[in-house]
């Protein structure tokens, strides 16, 4: 039941064919059955879920219109504030001295918008601490596991949200994507993950990691459901000064437009050394299917791609070192007392932050420090401009760009944990669109076939569009999805 498209489920609840309470119970049963094994949830909110579903059913009986997500269960990444529902951002630093997790006094705007359309929340999804990681292994609590093969990572940092959708616990979920944290786990678990244009979705209530890059981003099982969630959470919000005052497009309607005549750019730099053969094969076959459906494939060049990892890790670390200064043991979460204020800060932060967060804070402090600022931080900002110009030039000739989402399929838990740089390098295909602020998404391509005892694993096809042109991105995505369904 939970694997049906979101619009179909909401329609059934609105028409009375299905009770919101039944849908909620199905979600609870799926989580209770599978989550001990998969680790998708840090906090479950089943009491509140049941109460809200019952309230929705009562409202429907009175004749209320429940909205476009009527009764649809949604998992929310623990990086988003949820009023009265524990929020830790995957970190012990938001767990207080008596073990109590932070209870936000407000909802993130994206959450408010989901609730206004009748969605119900199942709980808070597992993640890498402060969204820093690509495998969910940096969660301060426990790693999430890939439903396709639990010895493998579901990706990160929004690993729990991806698992919730991939395992059929909820039809949709919210994550956040700073450098690929929704697209990469979507690719690894075989679902759809959408990073809208920077500024399209309010960041109000999203715990800040790298403010110039963070985007609240949804997961769903199919393109049209993902388009619907994106449409619901998008739009200007006066509470986020970087939120764009632009009308939201018709993303769901765009899915119905044919891809005949669509020009799809294929960047050579994304099919270079380091790309696993089974991923390349899968993505090229999906592109061939799109071409047969009437799209035109056009070779394009994004020459600065190789520098994206270096640029990202300088800028994201710098922004994080500043943003995370608010976790100081005074206003919320953990506290270790000290003789003076400095000692209180140092002890609280040393105890509250895990190793990856410490590493990035110190890296950020370094690249921002006197004597190194120009050489690292300013240099990275200039190369960021060149990365954005690469896209501008490519979009002179094409409507959308297609590439692999990740260079490999899901890797094993523990495989890259001791080598931060290797972990960072696995983000090479998702970082450029983040740095340029462009909308990008991952949708399932053909599975990679089983080899040497490894099961067949999902592969993600990434689509990147012009800023604020999510409509073309969804048109292309649904076109590819349709072409793959028809084979």
């Amino acid at each position, binding site marked *: 039941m939970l694997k049906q498209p979101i619009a179909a489920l909401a329609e059934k609840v609105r028409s009375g064919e299905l009770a919101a309470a039944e849908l909620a119970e199905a979600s609870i049963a799926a989580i209770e059955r599978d989550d001990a094994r998969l680790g998708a949830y840090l906090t479950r909110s089943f009491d509140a879920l049941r109460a809200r579903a019952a309230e929705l059913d009562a409202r429907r009986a009175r004749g209320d219109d429940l909205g476009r997500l009527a009764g649809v269960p949604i998992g929310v990444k623990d990086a988003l504030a949820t009023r009265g529902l524990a929020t830790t951002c995957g970190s012990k630093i938001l767990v207080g001295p008596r073990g109590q997790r932070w209870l936000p006094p407000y909802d993130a705007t994206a959450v408010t918008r989901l609730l206004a359309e009748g969605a119900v929340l199942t709980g808070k999804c597992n993640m890498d601490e402060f969204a820093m990681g690509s495998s969910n292994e940096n969660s301060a609590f426990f790693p999430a596991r890939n439903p396709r093969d639990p010895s493998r990572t579901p990706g990160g940092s929004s690993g729990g949200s991806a698992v919730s959708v991939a395992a059929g616990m909820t039809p949709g979920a919210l994550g956040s994507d700073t450098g690929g944290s929704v697209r990469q786990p979507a690719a690894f678990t075989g679902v759809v993950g959408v990073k809208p244009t920077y*500024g399209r979705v309010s960041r109000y209530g999203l715990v800040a990691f790298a403010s110039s890059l963070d985007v609240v981003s949804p997961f769903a099982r199919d393109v049209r459901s993902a388009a619907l969630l994106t449409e619901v959470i998008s739009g200007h919000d006066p509470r986020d000064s970087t939120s764009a005052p632009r009308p939201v497009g018709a993303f769901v309607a765009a899915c119905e437009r044919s891809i005949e005549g669509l020009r799809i750019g294929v960047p050579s730099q994304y099919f270079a050394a380091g790309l696993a053969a089974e991923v390349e094969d899968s993505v090229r076959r999906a592109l061939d299917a799109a071409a047969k459906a009437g799209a035109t494939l056009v070779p394009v060049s994004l020459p600065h791609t190789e520098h994206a990892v270096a640029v990202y890790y300088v800028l994201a670390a710098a922004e994080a070192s500043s943003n995370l200064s608010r976790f100081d043991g005074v206003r*919320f979460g953990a506290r270790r007392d000290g003789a003076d204020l400095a000692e209180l800060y140092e002890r609280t932060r040393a105890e509250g932050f895990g190793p990856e967060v410490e590493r990035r804070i110190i890296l950020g402090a*370094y690249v921002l420090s006197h004597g190194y600022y120009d050489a690292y931080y300013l240099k990275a900002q200039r190369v960021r401009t060149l990365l954005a110009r690469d896209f501008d030039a490519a979009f002179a000739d094409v409507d959308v760009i297609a590439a692999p989402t990740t260079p490999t399929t899901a890797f094993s838990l523990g495989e890259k944990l001791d080598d*931060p740089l290797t972990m960072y390098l696995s983000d090479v295909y998702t970082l450029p669109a983040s740095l340029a602020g462009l909308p990008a998404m991952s949708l399932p391509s053909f599975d990679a076939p089983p080899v040497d005892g490894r099961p067949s694993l999902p592969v993600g096809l990434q689509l990147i569009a012009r800023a604020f042109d999510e409509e073309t991105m969804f048109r292309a995505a649904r076109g590819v999805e349709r072409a793959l369904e028809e084979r």
Partner: protein
Amino acid sequence: MTSPAFSHDAVRRLARLARLSIGDDDAARLAGELEKILAHVRALEAVDTEGVPPTTHVSVDRLPLRADELVVSLDREAVLAQAPARAQEGFVVPAFVDEG
């Protein structure tokens, strides 16, 4: 960009700036990891950025200012209820004014 060897002391100084207390073992480990990451970052030196402006933020539109109007903010009691230590109507911190 010169190639600064990431010393123990440099890591400890940065940790102090970032208000993180770290032990000797962690300082040694971090020095090695950061050196490796920065070696990769130094490849940016080879990119010609002459005359290229830095991107601080990708804002396609000019972002509007909010109207200067009073709005209700979060309830004080709700916010203080989440503090690890509070007294009366405030957050508790160690004394930081030397009255001697």
